[in-house]
Structure formats: C-alpha cells, structure tokens
C-alpha cells in the first residue's frame, strides 16, 4: 500500500487520486484528499491536512471529511473542503461555510466572438471598471433602505426580476431559481443589514473579479452545445459573494455558538469549526440567516451582471438582448445546504457544507434546472487572471465520492505577503497585456501583485484530477481577455 506522510499525518492511497487519513482518536470519520501526487505534495505544505483532520470531529459527519484537488489552508475548515453532517443528529457549522456566504461565480454567454472584441479591449476594460462598483467603499449598483434589504434577503433574484434587473430566463438558469425558500431575514442582524445596504451590486476586493473571456477549447461538443458554448465565443465570468452582510452573519453566529453551545465547541479542536447542534433553535436561526445571505449574494452577482450588460450595450452600440447575453449558471463556493444523499443504501438528509467547493450534480438530480436535467449541472472553475478557466459538468461519480461536489478554482499557493515581495503590480499588468493580450484594471497595484498568476496552483492539473475522478467532467476551456479587480 502506498502511503505519504506529512508531519504526524499519514495518508494511505485508496486508488488513483484518492488518499485517506484513517479514523483514529477523537475523529468521527476518516478524511479523504482527492489529489494527484503533485497536488498532494502542495496540499501537504501548509495546515490543510491538519484542518481536514480537525473537520472530522464535527458531530454527525458522514462518510468522510473531503478535501478537493484545489484544497489549501483556510481558518478552521480547509478551503476546498466538503463535510456532510446529519441534519437530524449532527450539526451545522458556520465555520465550515466561511465568512463569505455564497461566495461564488456566474457565467454569462454572448453571441460575440473574439474577432468582434479585438481592438475594443482597452475601451471595454475601462468602461467595466468605471461602471461596476469595486474595492473598499466602492458603493453598490443600488442603495437599499430597510424594506429593500429585507425584500432582497427574503426573495433573492425574484426581487431583482421585479425591480427590472433580471429576466425570467436569468432565474431559470440560477441554482434554486435564485431564491431560497428557507431564507429568514429576521434572523439576520441589524449590524449585518447595515453593512449590506451600501454594497448591493459590488465586487468587493481580494480575489474577487469580473473577467471577459473567450472560449479556446471544447472537450465535449454535445454538452457544450447544451450549455450554449462554442469555440471563440466571448463569455463573462463574475466572482463575488455576499459582501459585508454575509461576513457579519457568519461572525454573529460564531459568537452566539460560543455563548450558547460552549459544550459542543469545547469538543472541537478549532474554535473556527464552531457548530450548532442540528434541530437546535440556533441551528434553525443560522440556517435561515445563511439562506437569506445566499439570496443577497445572488442579487449581488445579478446586479453586477446587469451593469455588465449595460456596458456591453454602450461599447458595442447594440442592445444586450441582441448580443444574447444570457446567464449560463450561477454556482456557490461557500454554502451549507440540506440535501438528501444515499448513504449505505439509505436516503438521509444532510447538511452538505461546501467551503471553497462547488456543487457538481450529475444529470438526473431533481435539483437541476430543466435546461440541464439531461446533461448535468454546469460547474465553473476560475483559474488565475493569467490562466484559463474551465466549465465542467457535474460528474457521474460525484454523488458517490463527494456528495455531489468538485473543486472551486486553482487554489492559492502563496501568501499575499510573499506575493507582494515577489511581484510588482504594474509589471504584472504590463506582462499580461504585452505577452498574453490580457487587459487588467484594478483599484491598486498591490491587489494585482497579490493575485498574480504565479500565486495560484495549476488549474489544468486541478481540472484533470476532477475529470479523471468523474466528479466534474471538463466541457470547455476559456482564456482571459479583460479583467477588473477590486
């Protein structure tokens, strides 16, 4: 049996790309890492494996705590982590969702080709940067009063539709049609609502971005056709989350768990894993508040997409409908959802925590929008701003291996501090433009340095592992044309 050791953690190779940390001591389940040898070597360099092992201490954790191929160290629960806990006897963990609730990506397709865009890149990147709120204090597309915030939290993209920022087709192509029925705005604190009111329709900063891309490779023609994708097509990828409202919601509930469920917290090896027992009042309130923050994030991305349509209409002097700017799909990276999965032959309701991981349901799951029921759910995997991104579809093996999940991106390799020592923002921008024809505009040079292509893992390798394991099948590859960052 092949084994690998990282510190005091020994992993056994179960099969190609599947490594297991056996259950021992206080662990409630074994842990699994889905990685090639090369990716495992990177994953083993920081505290990812320790955090993954800690995650197995969550009550009711089912099968395994799982690390995706892009996994890296976070706080508490690793980024790239999936943990399914029993929704009756287990727990729900705000720490295993993370602060940026429903941080995620959406992709919009167009009928433009790269030829249509060539020569307009500088104009387009400037116009997008000007029109889309980003950075700290950049405001939002709309400013919400108390009633508006509550409406957004309760209804998500249904609010956006009524307010004229979305179409019926947008809702039909969003997970849950852009609205969580379980949302309970009354469980979101006033403090969180205060932080959200000026940020509705904004990118934020850090690794959040908007990128215009072109499709460069098509791997599965039939699925690509179902997704409305073809070679040389221009698409737009938007990456942001629930902004301060979501961050505050997570913070509020971590602190309440500390006060109201200290006994459970003491059993966990890291306070950032803080969890509320399933069926407790606090678990119900957190779930309702988290679902409301999920709605807020969907509206946030919808408003950014709406503004993008307006910018394209200006730059190309055409109605955006004539450019067929349609939502392909919107996927969450940080979320916990009640889902029914078959475990040991029995259907069980679980809280599936995905932190830096994407739901990747195959064809046939009832949750899929009708448009994708026969081919599987689109999965969007962004690379760095100098590398390609991928569109996958949920793989047939995802339900068995990962509770229907796959990776969420390339995964960071280098700290921001080190990145700023090794890269100079203006130089990175110049090189991307001159060598790869990628136009980048950001609020600061430091942000560009922190997000330089070299600080990320090899997205090609992450997607190769996902594809070979059958948890997310690669459909097309895209390459950046314009990128704006907060």
């Amino acid at each position, binding site marked *: 049996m092949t084994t690998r050791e990282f510190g005091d953690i020994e992993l056994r190779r179960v099969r190609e790309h599947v490594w297991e940390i056996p259950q021992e001591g206080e662990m409630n389940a074994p842990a699994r890492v889905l990685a090639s040898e090369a990716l495992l070597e990177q994953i083993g360099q920081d505290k990812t494996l320790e955090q993954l092992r800690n995650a197995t201490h969550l009550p009711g954790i089912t099968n395994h705590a799982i690390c995706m191929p892009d996994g890296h160290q*976070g706080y508490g629960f690793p980024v790239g982590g999936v943990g399914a806990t029993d929704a009756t006897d287990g727990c729900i963990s705000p720490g295993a969702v993370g*602060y940026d609730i429903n941080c995620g990506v959406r992709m919009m397709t167009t009928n433009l080709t790269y030829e249509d865009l060539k020569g307009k890149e500088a104009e387009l990147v400037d116009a997008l940067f000007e029109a889309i709120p980003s950075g700290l204090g950049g405001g939002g597309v709309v400013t919400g009063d108390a009633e508006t915030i509550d409406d957004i939290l309760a209804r998500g993209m249904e609010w956006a539709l009524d307010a004229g920022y979305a179409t019926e087709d947008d809702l039909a192509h969003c997970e849950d049609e852009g609205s969580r029925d379980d949302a309970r705005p009354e469980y979101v604190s006033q403090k969180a609502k205060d932080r959200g009111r000026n940020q509705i329709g904004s990118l934020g900063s850090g690794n959040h971005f908007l990128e215009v891309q072109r499709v460069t490779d098509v791997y599965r023609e039939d699925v690509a056709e179902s997704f409305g994708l073809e070679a040389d097509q221009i698409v737009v990828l938007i990456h942001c989350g629930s902004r301060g409202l979501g*961050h*505050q919601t*997570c*913070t509020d509930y*971590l602190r309440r768990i500390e006060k109201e469920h200290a006994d459970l917290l003491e059993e966990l090896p890291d306070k950032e894993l803080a969890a509320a027992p399933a069926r407790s009042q606090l678990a119900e309130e957190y779930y309702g508040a988290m679902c409301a923050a999920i709605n807020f994030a969907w509206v946030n991305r919808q408003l950014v997409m709406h503004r993008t349509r307006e910018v394209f209409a200006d730059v190309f002097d055409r109605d955006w409908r004539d450019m067929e700017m349609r939502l392909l799909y919107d996927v969450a990276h940080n979320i916990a959802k009640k889902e029914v999965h078959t475990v040991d032959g029995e259907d069980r309701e679980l809280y599936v925590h995905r932190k830096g991981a994407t739901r990747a349901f195959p064809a046939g799951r009832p949750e899929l929008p009708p448009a994708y029921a026969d081919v599987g759910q689109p999965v969007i995997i962004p690379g760095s701003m100098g590398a390609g991104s991928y569109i996958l579809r949920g793989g047939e093996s995802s339900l068995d291996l990962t509770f229907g999940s796959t990776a969420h991106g390339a995964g960071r390799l280098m700290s921001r*501090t080190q990145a700023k020592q090794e890269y100079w923002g203006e130089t990175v921008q110049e090189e991307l433009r001159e060598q790869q024809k990628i136009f980048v505009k950001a609020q600061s040079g430091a942000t560009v340095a922190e997000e330089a292509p070299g600080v990320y893992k090899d997205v090609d390798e992450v997607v190769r592992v996902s594809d070979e394991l059958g948890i997310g099948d690669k459909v097309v590859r895209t390459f950046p044309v314009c990128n704006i960052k907060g």
Partner: protein
Amino acid sequence: MCYTLREHTADVAVEAHGSTLGNVFAAVADGLTAAMCDELAETGDRFSFSVRAESREALLFDYLDQLIYERDVRGVLPAAHEATVRQTDDEWIVDASARGIPFADVDARDVKAVTYSEMRLEETGNGWEAYVVFDV
C-alpha cells in the same frame, strides 16, 4: 507597541506586542489597518466606541469585528488606534478610538472578518502578545 504581518496561504495574520492589554489590542488593530492599506493618509476625524465581552479573547475578537463594521458603515479606514481595556465583575470592556480616513484618500483593500483561527492572547515577561488571522 508594534505589529508584524505574518505569512498565511490564503489570509493575513497579524502578530502584535504591547506593554498593556489596551496597547496590544491597538497594535493588532494597526496590523488590521496595514493589511488593508500600504500607505495611510493624514486625513480624517477620530471616532470613539466601546465594546463589552465575556472574556479577553472574545473582547479582542469583538473589538476587531466592531472596527470592520465601523469601516463599512462610516465609509472610512480606521487607523491610528488607541485602546484601554478594563475588567468589571462579569465582563471585559475596551474603550477605543481610531482616526477614520475617508476611502477617497487611500488605496485600501477589503478584509472580510476577524477569525478565532490560531488566535493567541498571552501575557509575557514584557507585556502582552497577540496573534490574529484575518479573512481576506
């Protein structure tokens, strides 16, 4: 009182020292400001606030969380932090102030939240030492 930004794969960590609890709190807050902005402006007015919590560590967490909240609702980057910490019978209290630099005057980036991950707050021979990871 001083702080250092420490390496962290995904986020930013601050290690800070201070002769008193108040000083180490303010030093961590200065590190939080540095994580958001490389060059500060001299503009902005001071604002004050107080936070109460059940323990020293919880107080540090809530103090930093309040600063992030003040940043978002006031639309300023809090800087030049001052803090004093006291204890009553059943709770800890920090009385703090910061200079709120208007966002228009700085190139600042977001820090999403304070975390408990790897948090340390310890008394040493020379005062107090703290280590805090921030989610970016």
